[in-house]
């Protein structure tokens, strides 16, 4: 339909320049500049900018997701906040991106607690820890973290998940 309309209109335009409508047969000079329809382009750009601004996250990266870690998915997770992160990657334990031994976990977490108290003497330590682990690992690998968190006074655990 659109194609046929285009053909017709182009046909009539070209016919208009020939003998019947324009007996002199004088052809109009064609402009060498092509007209770009910029309005549509600007519309599309504006929509893109608005969409990207809406999905823009100003909170920054709380977690660095490695290639070897695939987080489990959850529909009703809460917004992730910044707390000390314990990561289990390839069987190794990391506390705030520093590799540690399982036996040193409690001591290292206590250190974090003391550091917080020195920096914020008026505030009570929240005692929250974020655990980042691959979705396929067994609970036995995480048990030491749960136990150590409890021993170091971190009663609240936040399991990092991907929001569905």
């Amino acid at each position: 339909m659109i194609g046929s309309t285009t053909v017709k209109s182009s046909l009539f335009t070209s016919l208009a320049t020939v003998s019947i409508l324009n007996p002199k047969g004088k052809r109009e000079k064609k402009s060498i500049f092509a007209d770009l329809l910029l309005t549509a382009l600007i519309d599309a750009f504006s929509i893109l900018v608005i969409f990207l601004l809406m999905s823009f996250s100003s909170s920054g990266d709380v977690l660095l997701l490695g290639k070897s870690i695939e987080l489990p998915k959850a529909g009703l997770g809460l917004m992730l906040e910044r707390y000390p992160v314990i990561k289990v990657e390839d069987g190794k334990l990391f506390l705030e991106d520093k590799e540690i031994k399982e036996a040193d976990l409690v001591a290292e977490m206590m250190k974090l607690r003391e550091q917080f108290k020195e920096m914020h003497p008026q505030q009570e330590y929240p005692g929250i820890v974020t655990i980042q682990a691959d979705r396929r690992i067994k609970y036995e690998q995480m048990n030491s973290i749960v136990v150590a968190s409890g021993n170091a006074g971190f009663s609240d655990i936040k399991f990092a998940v991907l929001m569905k």
Partner: protein
Amino acid sequence: MRAGKKHLDFEINLIPFIDLLSACICFLLLTAVWVQVGSMDVKQAVGGQPASETPKKPTLWVNMGSSGELTLNIQDSKKVPAKLQKLAVKGVDGKMNFAELDVALKELKGLEPELRTALIQPQAQSVYEDMIALMDQFKKQGLVDLGVSPL
């Protein structure tokens, strides 16, 4: 003296505007976070306050079996009859049966609307993903205070 006709149409130079929009799009595309990371909040199910200081409230203990079966055990509830205080949800093909779990939770919630706490007891071989899926399921049913117990 006749003044020349003033041209009423004016043209806005759109090129800088397009440049600005392009720069904006590039910046936003580069800084966009495509994966939304959230958290599933739980508490330590064991430890913390002494048992005598802890206020008694209806609590659902969930034991995760090795082949997807779940054992639901409701404690500190006077509204739930004795025969429903211990329920078993069998697994399907080694996975948890969430449909049956939903039915059981709805029934328990209907009998005990105050039920908001669920404590999960995983096994050593329980998969982390299954634990999260279970927590998600509890949250859907209004059990928002979740806990996990160590082995």
